[in-house]
């Protein structure tokens, strides 16, 4: 499965740009209920992926995704590294194993479940899963890209009402309620950037 190198490179740049633009915002969210470094960590991860863009974009898509996932693991430097890394690596592995190469939603679902296992988390625990599951749902129902992006943003906002069950925020207990989860927020930003790029790349 070979994606167009331009598409992969464009997606990498779109993700890097949105994280760079929102790095301070993500750190702010993380300061409220965590250790305050989510924006910095994500920015470093994305920059490391960008540095490999020329090489990665020439790989078959499953290999490219696995490589990007590994780079994120090695460079994010917090719990988000293994979570985003697992997501990308598992999507790559699932796409490689799939008979029907077009079934991206099914690959995504398997990968999200792997992230849940990695974090020992479930939907409703105030994590990036609370964006990933709705995004998968929207994708599986073949919603338009703009609606998927909107669903992601809405889902991130909804984490404000949740009580954190995992990660540093869980130590705050009820005091975590009222704050948007930084991981959910970065996930929504990335989803929106990807949807926006795909929309422009291949107008529906």
């Amino acid at each position, binding site marked *: 499965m070979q994606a167009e190198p331009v598409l992969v490179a464009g997606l990498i740049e779109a993700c890097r740009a949105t994280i760079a633009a929102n790095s301070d915002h993500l750190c702010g969210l993380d300061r409220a209920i965590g*250790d305050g*470094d989510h924006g910095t*960590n994500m920015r*470093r991860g994305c920059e490391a992926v960008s540095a490999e863009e020329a090489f990665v974009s020439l790989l078959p898509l499953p290999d490219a995704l696995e490589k990007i996932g590994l780079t994120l*693991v*090695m*460079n994010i*430097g*917090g*719990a988000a*590294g*293994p*979570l985003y*890394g*697992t997501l990308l690596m598992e999507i790559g592995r699932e796409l490689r194993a799939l008979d029907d190469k077009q079934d991206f939603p099914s690959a995504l679902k398997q990968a999200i479940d792997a992230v849940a296992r*990695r*974090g020992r988390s479930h939907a409703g625990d105030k994590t990036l899963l609370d964006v990933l599951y709705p995004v998968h749902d929207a994708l599986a129902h073949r919603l338009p890209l703009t609606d998927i992006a909107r669903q992601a943003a809405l889902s991130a906002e909804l984490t404000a009402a949740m009580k954190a069950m*995992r*990660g*540093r925020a869980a130590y705050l207990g009820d005091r975590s309620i009222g704050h948007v989860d930084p991981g959910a927020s970065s996930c929504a930003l990335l989803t929106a950037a990807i949807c926006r790029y795909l929309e422009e790349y291949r107008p529906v």
Partner: protein
Amino acid sequence: MNGKTPNVGIVIVSHSPLIARGTADMVRQMAGDSVPLAWSGGNRHGELGTDAGGILKAIEEAWSEAGVAVFVDLGGAETNSEMAIEMLGPPRSKKVSICNAPVVEGAVIAAAEASGGAPLSRVVATAEELSPR
């Protein structure tokens, strides 16, 4: 010392390089060179954080055929340690255990147990007795 003793190895993982190194110093004082020992603290920029690659390197440094017990502080240390163990790959990954125990007390007690030649399961169990059930 690595590979020279058949004893279980100990790895300390903390968000803080100072805590990881300090804990390793205490373990070394307790167990001398009788257990393979390594630490990983902070992210790869030397700031507070954890680093899967650094943890993987520490596990390899403290590698023993008897296995390695890993001590972690907060959430990301555990998640990144699990990732590092997965990257280590089978069959060695099966011989690495993350201990549900306080970092300092757990590592020191585990090292004392390991220095007597205890198997990984007993090293881990002894350290985990420190944690409330």
